[in-house]
């Protein structure tokens, strides 16, 4: 299976420009989501993003308007199942596949909404889109990962110029 190219170090190409979104801010959003809302064991210290393969699940959402951005979250199916288990307070065996995808979609929806909130400008948030990775990842994106219960969850942030 062909892995998707991804920089293996936590990177922040937006360090040098006027982006309001940093790795630290993403880490804080991830920590709030998984610790406070889902009561999952997350380490908000960034780790090297793992290699992603075609079976990795991807949830993406876009911000458009005076600022535009793409946010994607990547997780293995097993990790997405754990997230859904925590989100729905149920056993993995009771989950339908679409519920597992919904859970990952809600993760990117919350992070995307939090990013949008950082922009004090007129913007709109798209609806989340979830599936397996179908297209090459965005170039020059800020990509970081976090340890979520022993497995990596990857967050990609790409601000687009108008």
């Amino acid at each position, binding site marked *: 299976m062909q892995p998707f190219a991804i920089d293996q170090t936590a990177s922040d190409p937006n360090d040098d420009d006027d982006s309001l979104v940093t790795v630290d801010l993403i880490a804080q959003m991830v920590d*709030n*989501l998984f610790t*406070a*809302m*889902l009561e999952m064991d997350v380490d908000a210290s960034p780790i090297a993003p793992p290699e992603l393969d075609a079976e990795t699940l991807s949830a993406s959402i876009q911000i458009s308007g005076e600022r535009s951005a793409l946010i994607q979250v990547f997780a293995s199916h097993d990790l997405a199942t754990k997230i*859904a288990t925590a*989100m*729905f*307070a149920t056993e993995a065996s009771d989950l339908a596949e*679409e*519920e597992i995808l*919904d*859970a990952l*979609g*809600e993760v990117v*929806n*919350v992070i*995307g*909404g*939090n990013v*949008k*909130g950082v*922009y*004090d400008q*007129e913007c709109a*948030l798209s*609806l*989340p889109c979830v599936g397996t990775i179908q297209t090459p990842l965005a170039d020059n994106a800020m990509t970081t990962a976090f340890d979520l219960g022993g497995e990596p969850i990857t967050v990609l942030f790409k601000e687009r110029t108008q």
Partner: protein
Amino acid sequence: MKSLVIDDSRAMRRILRSIMSDLGFDVIEAGDGKDGLEKFTAERDDIEVVLVDWNMPVMNGLEFVKAVRELEQFADKKLVMVTTETEPAQMARALMAGVDEFVMKPFTKEILVEKLKLIGVGLNTSEV
């Protein structure tokens, strides 16, 4: 005592259903504002509080709130926006439209309970 949960995310509806059920509410679900408005109209006498997302297809949460507040007989209904929207300008728009309170995602059960108490929504306190 009923609550209406309007969110296009099944995940979020399920989370809110679980919390509101624990608080003693019978929960009605809707997947967008239009669906929500139909269910709200049908069950309006029994619904005490509506938890509505902002960002939804078909009819968004702000449009739902405006539609409800246009009708004088629904003036006493409590509308809580459960959303990732945090910009002051957006929040001001929602308050002007008639939202009673905001709950920001991500949230905990305790935060939701606190917000419901603030607007005087009756809770089954043994579960709080």
